[in-house]
Each structure stands twice: as structure tokens, then as C-alpha cells.
């Protein structure tokens, strides 16, 4: 209609086109170059050196789900950052923790948060937890070209399912494949060790406090065996980030609480370096 909508300062047509409630859809029409997946990559051989985030763990308990991450980012054999935050609220009832290329992951989380918020504002209702998990899947898939150059982003998504009234965990692979995990899950370089720890310590009737302790135990074990995962740093007062999502919504466990649990674990490990023992039979 207008020859040059910019000259009048009027909202361009893309803004007023009804239909989509997705911010990513809108971006791909209005300014596709701002979408992470739409960028063209230089023909580069080999991996790019960039900070990588490491271990994320999640545990569900009857009243909700706990998602936690260590604080280290590494670049090759170097520690790039000691106090990076890798667990974020996605919206009121879900959280996302990211392992992989830190820069891309933070951008992906920012876009994911906005995608959920945008839908909520436009529709006046929240997406279902499945819907949110699928949306994240699409975003990871759009990063596939980057992943093939060594810049993968692999998140862990956890949330409270308002319809089913329970906490749920979703894990992903680099191609965007999504699978729901029962009980506990982990991702990142230390995930193998964290999963081993959780496998032995997990029970179905955990309380919120026990689940919080369990994730910090698992992160401790990951840090114990994986050089890229950071353990509790008592000297610098850097402790894992722990978040809890229940029917009351998202809550980040305060640094003081997290420190207290981490210190208690550390205290016990001075006597028993490998942590609590599970029954043999």
C-alpha cells in the first residue's frame, strides 16, 4: 500500500500482519538476518576456538523438577570463565540449561525466552510444555550448520507441566532430536559422570531439598572426573546454580543455600572422597 513505509515512521506491514504468534516467524519475515540459523557461514575448515559450557543436570521429584549447572566455561585446555551462568528461566514454569558453545547458547536462550514470552503476550495463554520443548527442538536444528563446525549447543529443558501436574525433563541432541527423560538427565562434557552419580543416588520419593542435594552431588562427581567441569570453588565463593520449578513456578535457589549444601557435601567428601555409597545389592 505505502510506497515506502519507513518514510512515514509507520509500522511496516510485517508488524501488522495477523496470523503468527511466533516471534521467530515474525523475525524470519521482517529481518531474517537476525535469526541465528539464517546466517551464512564462512567456508572454514576445522573447529573454531570459543568458550564452551560444560555440565548440566536435572532431577525430577514428586512436586517438581530441579535443574542445575556448574559454573565453568573452557576453551581448549584453558578455563575461559569461572562464574558463567548456564541455567536460565525460560518462562514462569520452565527453565533451560545449556552445554556447548557459550556465545551461541546464550543467544539461543535469549531468543527462546522471547519466543515463549511473545506467544504468551500475543495469545494471552502459555504454550504447553510439549509445545515449548518442540520450539526448542526447532531452534537447535537451525543451528546444525554451526554444530558441524564444532559450535554445537545442547540444552536440557525442564519444566512443570501445568496440565499433567508434574515436573518433566527433556534432553536434546545436536540435530534437534528431543527425548523425554524419566527421573534424571544430564548433558555436557561431564554428563557421563554426573549420570553415573544420579543413577546410584536417585529415588522416586525425593523431597525438594534432597533433589537439590542430589544435583550438587552429581555436579561434584562430574567435576571430580571431568577437567572441563568446575566443582564448588570455596575460595572464590562460586557455587553451582540450582533452580527449582514447582507448581508455584520457577525459583532460583539462593547463592547462600547453594553454598550451604555444597559446603556440607564438601565436608563429607573430606572423609569419603568418592561420596555416598549405594547399596551393593
Amino acid at each position, binding site marked *: 500500500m*505505502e510506497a515506502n513505509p519507513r518514510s512515514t515512521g*509507520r*509500522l511496516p506491514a510485517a508488524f*501488522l500482519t495477523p496470523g503468527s504468534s511466533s*516471534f521467530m516467524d515474525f523475525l524470519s519475515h521482517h529481518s531474517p538476518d*537476525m535469526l541465528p540459523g539464517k546466517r551464512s557461514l564462512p567456508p572454514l575448515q576445522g573447529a573454531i576456538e570459543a568458550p564452551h559450557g560444560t555440565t548440566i543436570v536435572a532431577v525430577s521429584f514428586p512436586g517438581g523438577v530441579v535443574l542445575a549447572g556448574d559454573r565453568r566455561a573452557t576453551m581448549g585446555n584453558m578455563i575461559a570463565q569461572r562464574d558463567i551462568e548456564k541455567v536460565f528461566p525460560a518462562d514462569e514454569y520452565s527453565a533451560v540449561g545449556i552445554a556447548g558453545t557459550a556465545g551461541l547458547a546464550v543467544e539461543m536462550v535469549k531468543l527462546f525466552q522471547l519466543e515463549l*514470552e*511473545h506467544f504468551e503476550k500475543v495469545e*494471552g495463554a502459555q504454550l504447553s510444555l510439549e509445545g515449548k520443548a518442540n520450539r526448542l527442538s526447532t531452534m537447535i536444528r537451525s543451528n546444525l550448520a554451526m554444530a558441524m563446525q564444532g559450535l554445537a549447543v545442547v540444552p536440557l529443558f525442564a519444566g512443570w507441566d501445568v496440565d499433567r501436574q508434574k515436573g518433566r525433563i527433556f534432553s536434546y541432541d545436536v540435530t534437534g532430536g528431543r527425548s523425554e527423560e524419566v527421573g534424571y538427565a544430564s548433558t555436557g562434557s561431564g554428563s557421563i559422570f554426573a549420570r553415573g552419580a544420579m543413577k546410584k543416588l536417585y529415588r522416586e520419593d525425593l523431597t525438594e531439598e534432597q533433589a537439590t542435594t542430589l544435583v550438587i552431588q552429581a555436579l561434584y562427581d562430574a567435576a571430580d572426573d571431568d577437567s572441563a567441569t568446575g566443582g564448588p570453588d570455596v575460595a572464590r565463593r562460586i557455587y553451582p546454580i540450582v533452580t527449582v520449578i514447582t507448581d508455584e513456578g520457577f525459583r532460583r535457589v539462593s547463592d547462600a543455600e547453594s553454598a550451604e549444601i555444597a559446603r556440607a557435601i564438601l565436608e563429607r567428601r573430606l572423609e569419603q572422597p568418592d561420596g555416598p555409597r549405594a547399596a551393593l545389592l
Partner: protein
Amino acid sequence: MSTPFYVSPQQAMADRAEYARKGIARGRSLVVLQYADGIVFVGENPSRALHKFSEIYDRIGFAAAGKYNEYENLRIGGVRYADLRGYTYDRDDVTARGLANVYAQTLGTIFSSAGEKPYEVELVVAEVGATPDGDQIYRLPHDGSIVDEHGSVAVGGSSEQISTYLDQRHRDGMSLAEALKLAVQALSRDTNGGEREIPAERLEVAVLDRTRPQQRKFKRIVGRQLSRLLEADGAASTPTDAPSDTEEPDGATPAPAEAPSEAPEVSETTEKPETKAPEGKDSGKPDGKDTGK
């Protein structure tokens, strides 16, 4: 083909304005008021799903009177504008002033473009600040002008009458219950000075609450919380003449008592030529975007 009649530009614009105003006047009025902890939106809305108020961004709310499909379109445009801006720069860089300007340009262009039907909407864009001084309320009439409002604003059908009523009674630092009650009193006066009852389930209420710990300050007030606020406890009666009314246990009673005395005064103001009001208010505002009127 016959030669079209000559219509002067003044006449054409006046006709379009008349058309838009009539459309807006068919809708029910709504009011936006500042209170101590933020900004409250109150309107009569029989629908629970089709909202008149909504969240645009962290600190910014939107209210609209007029044609639903047109303001819904603008609302979504505003959400997209705000989200894109916040994504490009930072969440703090999304302001009500910027949004109001974009709306004004959009409405103004549509209003003056001969090929398009003027939008029959009147918008309010409000932003809650960290302190009451930082609160901003912009009213955007159908023609693309901007009015920077303070304290209270009414849009829709009998907005002139309601805003006069509000201007006389609104004061800074009202509690939410007081502001809400004043808003309901204002809305329940009909054009000839009478009173009618608006039941709580027909009210749509939302706030931008600066004390909310979350980043997003917009919140709808529904159900129990709304009826609790509406239920009068004596202190929250008509604020202007509180001392004389304190013994009244029912907060709603003072209003009808004073209604007859106010009625002539109010109906006088409604007689004012409507066209004058927005233009007059506009002229001194630094933010007013002149759309060539």
C-alpha cells in the same frame, strides 16, 4: 462517468474524524489511573477472553477502546515492535514513548491516507516507572496525535464526562483499592448523570505494579483478588471527601449521594465541542506528533 464533486480537504478530514469518533463512541469507556504503586486499568468488558488491556513489555501496558479487530492488530504490532527492539538492543531500551510515537505515526498515516478507512480506535500506552514520577501515560486518539496525560485518563464512549469526573477526584498516591473504586464510580455514571451498577464479573482490571518482584510488571486482577479490592473497607471510600464519609460502612454509598450535585456540572462539560479537546491539549506537548492538522 460523472465528475466527482469537489470536497474541500477540511471537509474530508472532518468527515473521517466524525466517522472514527462515532465508531469509538459505540464502545464502552475505559479508564487508566495512576496510583501509589503503579498504574491501574479499569474497564467494563463482558468478555473474559477478548481483552481491552494487555501487556506490551516489562513495564508497558496497552489499553484500547473502539473496534476490536483494529486495536488487536495494533496491539500485536506493538508487541512485535517492543520484542524486536528489546531483542536488538536491551530490555531497558523499550519505552512507552517510542511505542507511542510508532502508534501515532501508524494511526496518523492511516487517518490521512485517502485509500484507507480510518481506524476507529483510541489507545492508551502506559509505562510504570521506578517511582511515581517516572510513570508515563500517553493517549492516542484516532487521528495520530499524542496526548501526554497525568494522573488519570479515560477513552471510549463518554470519555469527556468520565475524565472530568476523574480529574476532579483523582489525587496522587491513592491506594489501589481507592483508585479502583474511583474508576468504577466514574465508569458507572451514564451520560445523563445517572448511576448504574457494574458487577465485578463484568469488570476487566489490570495493573502495572512497580512493586512486583518479577521483571514483567503487568498483572491482571481477577476473581477473589478483584472482589476483595472492590469490597469497601471504610478507609477506601471516595477519597476527596473522606472525612465526612468515614462513618459510612458501605464505600459505595457516598457516590450516589453526591451524584445529583455533580450532575449539572458534568453534563455542562460534555456539551463542549468534542473536536476542540484533543487539539487543545496537544498543542503544548513536546511529544505531540503533528500529523499535519
